[in-house]
């Protein structure tokens, strides 16, 4: 057993209102620079929808993630090592800028400098890349709230089963939810494995996946290998950039910017302990539908004395072990099993998990003439209404609708139990039986309800600060933002993310 710690995230999708505050604050923090105008380390998609970049989930086309070869060995879908080196000159599976969108700015100046005239002056869009007026024809969330869905949403790669033909994108007949996405900081990252330069790495201490800007040579294989398309090419610096999990904040014991600013309070951050020796085997699980359980089995119980002893032997500090025991992520992922990974079938063992939304099912209950406050109606819908369920299963359980159904049943039972408790209904025994059926005791239900509904800041974000005694480089982070890299003495600093200038000027006093 080789115990490693990972900072992981869970998002409760029922609470996401699609306000994009996470995306905007992330962009202001990390990607408001030349070269990454088009990149969103965090974006919020409407599902069903084609996503960003367009149809990124179609791995037949984009070749992201891992697959098993005929002998059952884990191989990158984009091909072996030799093939990767042969495609250095032109990567056949790299999304073009058009698959993201052309970034624009506006002629704001025209609003105040236009001469007096009979018409209101307007600010026309102008391409950031060419400087010329352009039409805005796509964006990172073009189909927000199913806008244009009858035209586009059929292109959602998750709508591939027989049931999908029945999905209607007509008003009042459809369902929608928002899906915030960021780098998954996978246990078995395909991007790291595909990097020819060895510039990408997973940090031993907290599992954050980063690009070493000094070692990246711009071979762009990581973009193809990531099935979530969360590594981006900075076209000004020619280097790869990705979500950093706001590591300077995490190291200081603070939540990521997207979590900090989440209006719906739907994000949870916490530690997971896992056995690094089991990662390869779990990712190579033969049946895709077993990947969820395989990944859960890689996670270790932070209260188990054996695990604690092994973690201590691996050098994980005591306050981290304590944080692991208080981790809301461990509770949602492993204890209550209400959180699910996004596309486990990509075999990267992603570490940003989601509590699937009940709202599509509730919508379906209502449109079928049922009462969504009546748990029997909801249970019936979970069992019988295939469409939202199958869709959620494509996203979160490699197509296993029973698992998603089980989670939704649990959430439904919890809802009705707590309603009964709060409003003081008369059939408490019936509600307890319903709880029992989904494997929850009354105490656990209270705990899960508290975690999902009323958890405060310090309960949602249990982030232990990094240990300075083993991180001399951290002293560099105390006074300044790590993105501002020029003009700094060379003695103590690691530059993780490029600045917009094409080449840094040589700092004075440089060694």
């Amino acid at each position: 057993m080789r115990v490693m710690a990972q900072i992981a995230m869970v998002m409760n999708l029922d609470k996401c209102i699609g306000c994009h505050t996470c995306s905007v604050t992330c962009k202001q923090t990390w990607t408001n620079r030349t070269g990454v105008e088009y990149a969103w380390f965090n974006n919020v998609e409407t599902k069903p929808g084609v996503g960003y970049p367009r149809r990124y989930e179609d791995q037949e086309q984009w070749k992201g993630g891992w697959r098993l070869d005929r002998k059952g060995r884990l191989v990158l879908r984009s091909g072996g090592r030799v093939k990767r080196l042969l495609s250095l000159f032109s990567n056949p599976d790299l999304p073009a800028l058009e698959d993201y969108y052309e970034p624009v700015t506006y002629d704001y100046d025209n609003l105040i400098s236009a001469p007096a005239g009979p018409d209101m002056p307007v600010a026309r869009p102008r391409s950031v890349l060419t400087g010329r007026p352009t039409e805005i024809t796509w964006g990172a969330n073009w189909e927000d709230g199913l806008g244009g869905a009858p035209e586009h949403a059929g292109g959602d790669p998750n709508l591939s089963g027989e049931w999908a033909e029945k999905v209607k994108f007509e008003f009042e007949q459809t369902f929608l939810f928002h899906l915030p996405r960021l780098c998954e900081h996978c246990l078995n990252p395909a991007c790291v494995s595909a990097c020819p330069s060895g510039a990408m790495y997973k940090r031993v201490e907290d599992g954050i996946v980063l690009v070493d800007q000094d070692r990246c040579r711009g071979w762009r294989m990581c973009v193809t290998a990531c099935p979530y398309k969360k590594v981006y090419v900075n076209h000004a610096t020619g280097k790869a950039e990705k979500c950093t999990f706001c590591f300077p904040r995490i190291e200081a014991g603070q939540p990521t910017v997207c979590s900090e600013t989440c209006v719906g309070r739907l994000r949870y951050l916490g530690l997971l302990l896992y056995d690094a020796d089991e990662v390869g085997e779990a990712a190579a699980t033969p049946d895709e539908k077993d990947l969820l359980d395989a990944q859960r089995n890689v996670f270790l119980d932070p209260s188990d004395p054996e695990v604690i002893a092994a973690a201590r032997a691996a050098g994980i500090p005591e306050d981290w072990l304590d944080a692991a025991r208080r981790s809301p992520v461990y509770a949602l992922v492993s204890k209550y099993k209400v959180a699910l990974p996004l596309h486990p079938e990509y075999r990267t063992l992603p570490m940003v998990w989601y509590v699937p939304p009940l709202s599509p099912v509730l919508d379906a209950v209502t449109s079928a003439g049922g009462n969504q406050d009546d748990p029997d109606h909801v249970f019936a819908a979970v069992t019988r209404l295939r469409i939202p369920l199958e869709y959620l299963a494509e996203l979160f359980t490699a197509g296993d609708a029973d698992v998603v159904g089980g989670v939704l049943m649990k959430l439904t039972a919890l809802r009705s139990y707590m309603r009964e408790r709060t409003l003081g209904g008369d059939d408490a025994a019936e509600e307890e039986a319903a709880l029992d059926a989904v494997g929850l005791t009354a105490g656990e239900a209270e705990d899960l309800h508290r975690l999902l509904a009323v958890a405060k800041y310090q309960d949602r974000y249990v982030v232990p600060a990094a240990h300075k005694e083993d991180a001399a480089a951290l002293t560099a982070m105390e006074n300044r933002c790590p993105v501002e890299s020029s003009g700094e003495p060379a003695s103590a600093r690691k530059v993780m993310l490029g600045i917009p200038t094409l080449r840094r000027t040589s700092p004075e006093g440089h060694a």
Partner: protein
Amino acid sequence: MNVSGTDLLLWVALPYICLAVFVVGHVWRYRQDQFGWTSRTSQLLEHRWLRWGSPLFHLGAFMVIGGHVVGLAVPASWTEAAGISEHMYHTGAVWAGSVAGIAMVAGLGMLCARRLLTRRIRLGTDRSDKILFPLLSAAVLLGISATATHNVFGGGYDYRETVSVWFRGVFVLQPRPEAMSGAPLLFQLHAVTACLLFAVWPFTRLVHVWSAPVGYLVRPYLVYRRRATTTAPGTRRPGSRRPDTRRAA
């Protein structure tokens, strides 16, 4: 032996200056500018021309470089000792060289065309590219013109008796400018542009050649690194501890 001042300048001073700049420039750039050390890919912005141009150019360049190594570094007496007659060598060199040269010229032409014609890429072209692309084009075009003029359509010119002798002389520190002074103008111009290309090499995107990721073939897939072992750019000492890599998949 009469060697003019011009010959000394062009065939002794220039190559040594260029080689010195090449070496010192690389050391300086590697120590100071890891962040700028990249292939500067523009595939994101334009991929239709690149898809054909880049592989053609690169594969052509590999063959051309191989041909130059054989033609310049290996004395004619060695190939003859190996049983390859002058005629066989010449025929082979012209055929292989023509294929490689045409591939490289076609590829480079496409890469230049997309750089000029695609506005997004033209605007992203920096100063080093504005020197590199014309200089590289000049060297390549002069080289293929020299071959075409003298060895494909012309009567044949045995550069292994002159240019190669001069080339080897530079590296064994016994410069032979007189060997080059009689060469046809196209060969001379090709040699001068090649020297200049070596001089600008460390300051352009050409440095990515030295980062060809052959080590990837034997590396473990997953790379783990400790936060504590990361060092600042420019201070990574050769021989310092490599990142902690382990095989996990």
